[in-house]
């Protein structure tokens, strides 16, 4: 029995290499032309709804979690924020009065203020792409698997499987560190130590 049929974007900082391709893809998806080469000439410039936060050796992709019982939806005084039929948290710009309450209550600091129109904006799970059955733009752009789209069941079972495989590889001694995200840094340092100790591969 599925616990949740609503898919969302899952983030895996261990796999994020900080290319910020998701930011570009997001901005392009939220432009008028939906074409990179035209989008950068648009006025106003389209803005990304996902941000990569560099935290030391790690990169953390931050985007809307589209919470069930989202605090932003609950506090919105005008009803500009709502859940659509797919469960995504959406904003109707026409109803938004720019009070920023959603930003105050969001535990992740997601909703942003667009000064030009005095309204809030945030990740909307790419409604145009959802209609076409495509992945959200940021997920499609992510080449390392740091961003994944699916239901909690799918993701959790994948994580479980990957971890199980890793345990087996560790046990068999064939586990090699992944050259991704913080693993990239860890493995770089491991390699330097190996070289210094004269044990280069």
């Amino acid at each position: 029995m599925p616990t949740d049929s609503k898919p969302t974007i899952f983030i895996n900082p261990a796999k994020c290499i900080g290319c910020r391709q998701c930011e570009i893809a997001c901005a392009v998806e939220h432009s008028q032309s939906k074409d990179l080469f035209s989008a950068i000439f648009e006025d106003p410039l389209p803005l990304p709804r996902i941000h990569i936060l560099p935290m030391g050796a790690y990169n953390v992709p931050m985007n809307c979690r589209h919470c069930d019982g989202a605090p932003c939806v609950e506090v919105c005084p005008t009803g500009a924020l709502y859940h659509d039929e797919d469960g995504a948290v959406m904003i109707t710009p026409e109803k938004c009065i720019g009070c920023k309450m959603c930003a105050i209550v969001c535990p992740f600091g997601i909703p942003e203020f667009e000064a030009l129109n005095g309204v809030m904006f945030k990740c909307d799970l790419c409604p145009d792409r959802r209609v076409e059955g495509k992945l959200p733009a940021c997920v499609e752009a992510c080449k390392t698997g740091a961003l994944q789209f699916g239901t909690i069941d799918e993701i959790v079972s994948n994580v479980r499987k990957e971890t199980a495989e890793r345990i087996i590889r560790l046990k068999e001694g064939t586990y090699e560190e992944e050259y991704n995200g913080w693993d990239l840094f860890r493995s770089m340092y491991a390699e330097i130590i190996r070289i210094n100790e004269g044990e280069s591969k």
Partner: protein
Amino acid sequence: MKKYKEVSIDSTTQRMYERAQEMGIETVWERLEKQQPQCGYGLLGVCCRNCMMGPCRINPFGGEPRRGVCGADADTIVARNLLRMIAAGAAAHSDHGRHVALTLLIAAEMAEKFKKEGKPVLELDNMASNVLPYQVRDVEKLKAVAKRLGIETEGKTIRELAREVAEVALHDFGKQDEEALAFLKAYLNPKTYEIFEKAPEKAGMPWFENGILPRGIDREIVESLHRTHIGTDHDPVSILLHGLKTSLGDAWGGSLIATELQDILFGTPQVIKAEANLGVLKEDYVNIVVHGHEPVLSEKIVEAAQDPELLELAEKLGAKGINVVGMCCTGLEVLMRHGIPIAGNFLQQEMAIVTGAVEAMVVDVQCIMPATVDVARCFHTKIIDTSPLATFPGAIHIKFDERRADEIAREIVRTAVENFPNRSKQRVEIPKEKMAGYVGFSVEAILKHFGGSLKPLEEAIVEGKIKGVAGLVGCNNPKIKQDHNHIKIANELMKRDVLLIGTGCWATAAMKYGIFLPEYVDTENVGPGLREFAKEWGIPPALNMGSCVDCTRMLVLADLIARDLNVPISALPVVGSAPEAMTEKAVSIGTYFVASGITTHLGIVPPVLGGPKVVKILTQDLYDIVGAAFIVEPDPYKAAKLMYDHIMKKRKELGI
């Protein structure tokens, strides 16, 4: 996975791509798909990896970061990256030119040595001895080039002249004085020369040394890398001016040397009929594909394939003979000079192997996908790499050496022949389609065809029978359906009575669709004026001028017309286009076309859009600086219209 019809308009490519899919072989189109979406910073050119404080990138949507760690903004980064592309393209062409110059020098030295040793060889003074691996095949051209360079030809033997020409060429690569290149001075008309001198003044940078006249081919490339080093040149204008200079070192230096000296060594192309497309591979023959860019090796392969001993071996092993075919620009070199059929352009290199009928693909340098080795693993095909500077993991290395060229070429052909019994006959499928066409339109051949001068062509242009000339250039890019834009732009221009000249993968594309047949003028794709002119002179509506390094043939042709009309090249109703550009060489070619005064269209958006100032310079300001600029337009119909409009504008300015 893509449908086969989406990847190409060429039916042989379509069928072989389908076959690759059936066999589960990954090709260029799958690899492109796996790269999607491609990095937006890279596509816009706003990613800088020139120092280790980086990599840095600029937010193209106006937010932070607006500057790299060093403080470079988007325009500086974009201009620097573009300059590096130009430098790499110029380096590739020019290194090719150097290789040819060195070969000419080696040939002259060997002839001298043989003479001294008193070897009984025929006509050594003409270097037409069959003992030498390389000879001077076109004595007339050697004399003509020497004359242009101001070398005294009277009373000198051919080998002395060959040595002197080679030395002037080699001097141009490494010279350190402030003079412009000897080849540039010898070939460029004075009015355009003046524009080159004054370009920096017009760009508001009078302190720029020597205008945009290149001083040393290598020097300008090295200076490009110096300028783009962290903390050196940050003004997009001066960075781009140096880009023009570097590309001109390629145009009127490296590439020109390659073309001219190749003609001296291997013969100047003359009009000849030949065939193109994968259908030129033969079922019962040992098929050898020569692929890459340099004829120094492939000329010898062609010779070795006629060796009676090897032919006998081929027959003994069950083959009817040895069939050498070309691919990419190496293919065009042997096509132009010997009528050796060409199997295809860039995107057909994997497809040729997928036929299962190729015994060996012999590669030298440039545009050879490392993936050929992977595809070849699915068949008996051997990839043989020959250049010390292009090694392919998984390929057989047979290092080429000019001094032992005949011996090595025979070894390569023997390796292919001996591989014939490994061919699995039931896994062979060769598409039948091939097309004939007339090729070999070197400047000399064109002059000869028009009775010794370009008058007929110039008159037709002045009368308006022909509206202008468009030079179409090279490359396939899997981002565009193979050959689609090449053919559409060609047809749209010919419909408007524009005579086409072209090189590289464009030329192979055009040949595959019959555009190089005189009969093509009777199709609806050719306008009445061009039809009349082509019929009068018995030429196809488009002329194949050779490989991509031979783009200089187009420059020399434009230069001749400019001299006749006493105007700079930029005044002529001439345009350039690279409809499916892919390489850094194409960036260099496009830049030197523009710098020389030929407004040039690009069908693929180059990685510059992230720098608005750079875009403005390239598409607008260059008109004031050198009299030509870039047009970027992915739609072939719109592009042809823009190019035609430019031609008409130039006609109006000339008062014709």
